[in-house]
């Protein structure tokens, strides 16, 4: 097995959603500040969970299928990148659905007296 197996799965997720930014104009990566502010707390919380799970032997990683680089404490870099890539994919999906269907998410500007929707 390749040391890039885990990274390969992440690449599949990243590239599999990247086209949404261009074709559906999701404008998620373009709004990078909002993206960082959204993903950073998720990384902190889920890395803490992951470190506990690793220390309590909830799960282990096949050393022959990950890069072997340790990101922080006992957390493999591959696993840290999971918490970067997957949230981005989730936000891209939400914005893709908004782009296609036009449904409200809750962050739309309130425009009193303006009923124009295109």
């Amino acid at each position: 097995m390749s040391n890039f197996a885990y990274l390969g799965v992440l690449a599949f997720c990243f590239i599999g959603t990247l086209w949404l930014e261009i074709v559906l104009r999701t404008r998620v990566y373009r709004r990078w500040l909002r993206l960082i502010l959204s993903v950073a707390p998720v990384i902190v919380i889920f890395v803490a969970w992951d470190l506990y799970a690793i220390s309590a032997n909830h799960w282990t990683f096949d050393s022959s299928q990950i890069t072997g680089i340790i990101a922080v404490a006992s957390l493999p870099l591959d696993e840290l990148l999971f918490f970067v890539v997957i949230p981005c994919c989730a936000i891209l999906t939400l914005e893709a659905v908004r782009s296609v269907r036009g449904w409200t998410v809750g962050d739309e500007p309130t425009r009193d007296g303006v009923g124009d929707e295109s």
Partner: protein
Amino acid sequence: MSYTQLAIIGILVVIVGDLFVLRTRLLTRKIFWVSYAIIVFFQLVSNGLLTGFRIVRYNGEVIIGSSTPVEGPPPFIGDGRLVFAPVEDLMFGFALVLLTLSLWVFWGRIGVQRLPMAGPPRFSPGRKRDSESSP
């Protein structure tokens, strides 16, 4: 604490976060559930790869099902697993996705890069035809 217990607590905490702390109330919106349906399909695919190839291996003492076997993939379905992954991963994934989307909407609601909004799609022949037919 077991993974099962932690996953349930994780879901509950994030639900409270969406409804009462961040007040984004995504759980009450159609767009969230349609997006989640798409996400969970691809979660089963990508997580199925991670668990089916045993890149990540689980300890049977902390999940509903058994440990990831030493040789060969875990069950595709059954023994507390769905597409090779422990069902706890579905709860973990739900918490991860809902927290992420709640935060994204939270920042937008308070005005952080609310604009430019998503869309319209670059290629939408259906929409073009609509605008041509209606004045």
